[in-house]
């Protein structure tokens, strides 16, 4: 029950983009088409789940026994960067079309604060390994959900006659703000 709540909380209540404002860069950068947005969402799910597992192991098996908890930020960044490099190689080999579609945004996941945010949340809340991974799936699922919804909205916007000053990013940011307001409706729904 707690795991299901954790998953739902990650997707709706503590949505990384709309309530914690993490990972805005890829959210705005890759949300022009639903197809690439879905690709980015899947890549982020993949990275975050693996990063949650890896950082949990590093933190609890290396940093805690050595009494080096204060080094968690550096260690996590190192893990995430190496992981993203590995995933980039993997995708380039296995799915060149996804690699093409993600382009520069795949290396950018390295500096996606949602990934680091997820790892740090796991550590601060003292989740166990399973909980950490479920929290990662929830958070990353929330990111993918948000970016696909937003890409759908932006695709519709693109076909409309928009006043010049609002065309492009201004309207995208206004749309993101409105979506954030609507997602705030979920706040307090699930208490863990």
């Amino acid at each position, binding site marked *: 029950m707690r795991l299901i709540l954790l998953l739902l909380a990650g997707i709706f209540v503590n949505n990384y983009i709309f309530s914690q404002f993490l990972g805005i860069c890829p959210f705005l950068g890759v949300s022009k088409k639903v197809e690439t947005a879905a690709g980015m969402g899947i890549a982020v799910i993949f990275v975050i789940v693996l990063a949650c597992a890896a950082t949990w192991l590093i933190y609890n098996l290396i940093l805690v026994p050595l009494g080096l908890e204060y*080094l968690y930020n*550096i260690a996590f960044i190192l893990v995430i960067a190496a992981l993203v490099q*590995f995933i980039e*190689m993997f995708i380039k*080999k296995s799915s060149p079309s996804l690699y093409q579609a993600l382009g520069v945004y795949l290396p950018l996941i390295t500096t996606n604060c949602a990934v680091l945010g997820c790892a740090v949340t796991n550590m601060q809340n003292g989740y166990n390994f399973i909980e950490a991974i479920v929290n990662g799936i929830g958070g990353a699922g929330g990111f993918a959900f948000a970016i696909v919804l937003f890409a759908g909205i932006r695709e519709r916007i693109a076909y409309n006659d928009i006043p010049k000053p609002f065309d492009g990013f201004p309207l995208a940011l206004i749309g993101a703000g409105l979506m954030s307001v609507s997602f705030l409706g979920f706040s307090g729904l699930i208490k863990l």
Partner: protein
Amino acid sequence: MEIINIVTAVASISGLGVVFGGFLGYASKIFAVEEDPKVGEILSVLPGANCGGCGYPGCSGCATAIAEGKAPVNACPVGGSKVANKVAAIMGVEAADTEPQVAFVKCNGTCSNAKSKYTYEGISDCVFASQLAGSGSKGCTYGCLGLGTCVNVCDFGALSVVDGVAVVDEEKCVSCGKCVKACPKGLIAFKPKSKKTAVRCNSKDAGKEVNANCSTGCIGCKICEKNCKFDAIHVENNVAVIDYSKCKDCGLCAMKCPKHAIKNERAEAMAAKKAAEEAAAKAAAPAAEEAKKDDAPKSE
């Protein structure tokens, strides 16, 4: 104790780094993707200006497209036939000889030739100025504003504004097409580099209006059309346009044009020679007359 803390911290983090580094190095060998070696070879032959003139994002995009057969070997407009031949050698095909193109400006409305409606003192940008009343300060609404938007956009220093009108340096021009897109008046077009004849006017106004604004505008009189022996020049929408596939570059149209709106280097050279001869004749005239006087008695 504190030193041990530092050592363990440094050692553990650098240890993690070494482990990840080794892992990534190993993974890069397993997941190595074989890239077409032709892409690299073509890329090394291309000019590397990343101007985007080919329509692909930079030279590497063009090289990939050529290697995949999506683009012809002469896809690079900048490199011309030289690069096309090298690319063709890499791709193992014969390159069709491409005639190098250069940009030219379809206006000759210099400060002395064309009238201005008002004095423009705004920012030096044609796009901005062309959005003002009367689409710019020039009397002729089609004319070059001479504020140098094309000059700024050219990566090769081939454009300059001379006497209020943009001029292309044909030696430097690589026909990337950036200026063609940048000109708000649509005044810049391509012509084959070998053809020296060009209509230096784009005014679609009627003859009377053209005459009022510019001393060297095309008035659509069709004299060039009647004189051309190759059916290569036609007046369309009150302005003469040369069909370069038919033009033999004879320069007859340029010589016949009553407004001197058509430029041809040969015709210009001939005109200059004629003018020089006339001037020389004038200068020589008094002397000749004197000589005649001197000669006259002798011959008689």
